[in-house]
Every structure is written in C-alpha cells, then in structure tokens.
C-alpha cells in the first residue's frame, strides 16, 4: 500500500517537474546564433541521457542477477530495457523529424544517430530474446548475458561524436567548458531541472513496470492455485 502511494507521488512529481522545466525552457533567453532551434537542446539532451542510463541499469542488474540469482534484478533489468527502448524510440523519432529543417533530409547516416539506431536494434533484440525463451528458469540467465553483451553499444554511441568528427553538436568538450562557453548559467538551470524530472520520470516508470511484472506473477500463482 505504501509502495503504491510512493509510486503515485513519484509519477506526479515527475509530471510537475516536466511541466516546470518546459516552462523554464521557454523563459530562457534565446541563443544569439541559433535562435529558437537551440531550445531543442534543453529537451533533447535530458531525453537522450535517459536511455543511456536505462541501458546502464540493464547492464548492472544483469551482472547482479548472475551474481546473486535474485529474480528482483532480472525484473528491474527487463523493465529498464523496455523503458529505455521506448524513450530511445521517442528520441529517434524526434531526431528524424528534426533533421529535415536542420540538414534538409529525414535521415542522416551520422555516427550518433546511427549508433543510437544500433542501440535501439540491440535492445529490441533483448526484448525479443526475453519473449522467445520459453523456459522460465533459463530465461533470466540468457537475457542477463545478452544484457551484458549489448551494453557495448552504449559507450560506443556515447563516445561516437567524440571519436568521429561529425555534424552532431557537441556541447561538452574540455576546451569549451574551460572557456565557460559550454552553456551559460541561465541555460544550465532549465537543463538540469529537465534532467532531474526526466530521471524521476524514469524511476516512476521503472517502479510501475516492475510492479506490473509482480502483479502478473501473483495472478499466475493464484490461477495455478485455483487450477490445481
């Protein structure tokens, strides 16, 4: 009961947070060079971080599952992969639509976008693997191993714009930060608020999704009990 209240509050907090941050985004000063387009960054950056974080959670929980054999970690890993995939989908869709006005084409085979797509494919594979292992005893182990393997795409995608010179804007480079050029304070605040509320949103989704798996199992148990 208490869990449920916490999860509701979390959900509410993340929604309010997102609204506040949207508001601050529109209140923030216009960029001198880029104009309104630059506002994308406030939203794009926090949303882009969450899938990386979600897949990192999959990686860590997969290792923890193999070490401890506690089903809890398997559930969290699965839920996190699904949420990461949904947010990554949203990100790819925005990116695709947004490419049109900036680069004039819908899709650019640019390292960051391409590696994000590969990441998407890998975790879609992760979910497919989850559904195609019939043996419930074996499933957590197999998906955990793949969760570890698939994580290779995350650092590659994250570092891609640093390794290859690309058209993708790179905000945080040591040189820019040293010059204080990365972002000025007024732009930092909305970004950080947005990042915090996206993280809350992720935690809320994770809680609900794990709860859903638990409910499904409980129902299955009761059905077995009645059936037997």
């Amino acid at each position: 009961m208490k869990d449920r209240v916490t999860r509701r509050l979390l959900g509410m907090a993340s929604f309010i947070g997102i609204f506040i941050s949207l508001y601050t985004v529109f209140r923030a000063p216009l960029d001198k060079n880029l104009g309104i387009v630059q506002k994308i960054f406030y939203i794009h950056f926090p949303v882009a971080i969450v899938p990386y974080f979600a897949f990192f959670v999959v990686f860590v929980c997969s290792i923890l599952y193999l070490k401890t054999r506690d089903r809890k970690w398997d559930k969290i890993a699965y839920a996190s992969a699904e949420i990461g995939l949904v947010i990554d989908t949203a990100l790819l869709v925005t990116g695709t639509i947004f490419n049109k006005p900036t680069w004039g084409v819908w899709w650019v085979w640019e390292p960051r976008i391409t590696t994000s797509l590969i990441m998407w494919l890998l975790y879609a594979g992760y979910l497919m693997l989850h559904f195609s292992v019939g043996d419930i005893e074996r499933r957590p182990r197999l998906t955990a191993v793949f969760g570890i393997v698939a994580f290779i795409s995350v650092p590659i995608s994250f570092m891609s714009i640093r390794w290859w010179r690309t058209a993708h804007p790179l905000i945080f480079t040591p040189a820019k930060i040293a010059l204080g050029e990365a972002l000025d304070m007024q732009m930092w605040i909305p970004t950080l608020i947005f990042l915090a509320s996206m993280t809350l949103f992720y935690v809320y989704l994770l809680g609900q999704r794990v709860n859903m798996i638990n409910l499904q199992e409980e129902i299955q148990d009761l059905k077995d009990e009645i059936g037997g």
Partner: protein
Amino acid sequence: MSYFEAAYFAAWLILFLYVFYIERKLAVLGRDLNHLKEVVKREKS
C-alpha cells in the same frame, strides 16, 4: 517551426501512450488480482 512542433508532439505522444499503457494495464491487473483473491477466499470457506 512546424517541424519543431511535430517533433515534440511525436515524442511526447510516444511517452504518453507508454504511460497510458502501463497505468491501464496496472488497473486491469489490480482488478483481476482482487477478483482472484475473492475466488480463492470463497473456495476456502
């Protein structure tokens, strides 16, 4: 501008649908669970 709006509309729509799916499914599962618990109680008594 229209691209800007379309992009954000699409992204939020996807996230909203996902939240909607989870909340809806949880409500259905909660109902099923309560129903089953009652059935079990009835069978035991």
